[in-house]
């Protein structure tokens, strides 16, 4: 088995997949802790569907680099959802559900009407479930992903205490003079970037799992914010690596294998903590 593994590791596309997979799972788990605790678990789902819709628009417009459309659109929606309804929190989940299903429907509609390929269903399935897209990454995709991941990680480490203060108690943070609006904006932008990146790894429908599972697993066992954050990052990276390797060796779809690993990790944490 190891011979086979080393044989595969000789291929650059396998190494790309591992680098990108590690970085994305690291970033998504860090922000996942904040999202789960802010009761925004579903935002990942909503934003990834928006990214899917934007992807369809990019395909219709025949833009060569579709990131130019996907990233700004997703960031704009993230800002609307996370920073828009400060005093209308109750509307939050309804807004996400609306945007989520709406974007998915429009995306699929556009792909069908303006389709240039013979296999629309196959294309859609690939985008939604990620199937093999992570194994077809080009070097430019990898550079973009590495650069964006580094920006996300540096921002997170630099503003870690601010993010904690806002996550735990937005009102108190505002009263002590923290620029809560600015940091919420920053968090929204970072999350949109992560979601778009993660879509490559596991596909639009499974992005939430990458955001939510490691955080929930870590919260079962650890008791301080710092230990939960670190544990979520470690769990997420291990699950993604294991998922990618299993997927390559067993020929299963990458995205769903990673999520299956995350579920196993969650069950282990759940059982050991209770």
């Amino acid at each position, binding site marked *: 088995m190891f011979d086979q593994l080393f044989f595969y590791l000789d291929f650059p596309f396998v190494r790309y997949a591992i680098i990108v997979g590690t970085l994305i799972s690291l970033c998504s788990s860090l922000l996942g802790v904040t999202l789960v605790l802010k009761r925004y678990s579903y935002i990942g789902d909503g934003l990834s569907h928006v990214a899917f819709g934007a992807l369809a628009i990019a395909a219709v417009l025949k833009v060569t680099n579709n990131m130019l459309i996907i990233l700004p659109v997703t960031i704009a929606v993230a800002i609307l959802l996370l920073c828009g309804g400060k005093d209308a929190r109750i509307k939050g989940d309804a807004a996400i559900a609306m945007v989520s299903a709406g974007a998915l429907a429009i995306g699929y509609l556009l792909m069908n009407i303006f389709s240039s390929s013979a296999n629309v269903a196959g294309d859609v399935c690939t985008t939604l479930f990620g199937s093999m897209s992570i194994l077809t990454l080009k070097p430019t995709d990898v550079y973009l992903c590495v650069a964006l991941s580094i920006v996300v990680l540096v921002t997170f480490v630099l503003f870690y*205490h601010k993010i904690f203060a806002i996550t735990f108690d937005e009102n108190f943070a505002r*009263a002590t003079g923290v620029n809560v609006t600015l940091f919420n904006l920053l968090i929204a932008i970072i999350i949109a970037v992560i979601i778009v990146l993660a879509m490559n790894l596991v596909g639009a429908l499974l992005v939430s799992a990458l955001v939510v599972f490691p955080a929930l697993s870590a919260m079962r066992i650890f*008791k301080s914010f*710092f230990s939960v954050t670190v544990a979520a990052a470690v769990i997420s990276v291990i699950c993604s690596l294991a998922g990618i390797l299993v997927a390559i060796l067993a020929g299963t779809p990458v995205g769903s294998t990673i999520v299956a690993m995350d579920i196993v990790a969650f069950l282990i944490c759940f059982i050991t903590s209770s």
Partner: protein
Amino acid sequence: MIKCHNLTLGYGSKNIVNSFNYEINSGEYLCIIGRNGCGKTTFLRGLAGVLRPKAGRIELRDNLRRNQIGYLPQITIAQKDFPASVEEIVLSAFQGKSLLLPFYGKALRKRADECLELTHATNLRKESFRELSGGQKQRVLLARALCAAERLLLLDEPVTGLDPESSQNMYNIIKDLHEQKKMTIVMVSHDVEAAKKYATRILNFNEIAQ
């Protein structure tokens, strides 16, 4: 210490506090009472700077600065099972001082310890917030407010939901802060008996609203 000039506060198009004029003096222990929804909490949020006035203004007097005001908001549902150590929560009070460092210095840690001691919560320092009792949680959040404050404390229903013993404990701590540390206290409360017993002045919000 604080003077409100024609203060109007509210959410969206709804005004909850209308053209309100009031003055809070240094050294007072002010209790704000009134039925649910009459605007007590909204007023306190305005004083704390969480809610911006729609009209009028809040004047800080006697050289009072924003970062000398400590605020104890009502506990939220999300906080009840929040995985964070007491130390992390209390130290987060210093984030308003525009720290960009990823760690806290010795002086700040010492100040945090002092505040925990004032609220009899030193032994909880390493505990996880979500495993504390209601009374312990409130004492930790009061310590956090103290870290951010030197002169004025704004307390939003600090004893709501606590058992009689924890409530009494909380009232004693607040009384000590008022009498020994010479802090000005503004407390929103439903407990009229305690308000009569401890406060130097009572503001009945029922008469002001609408």
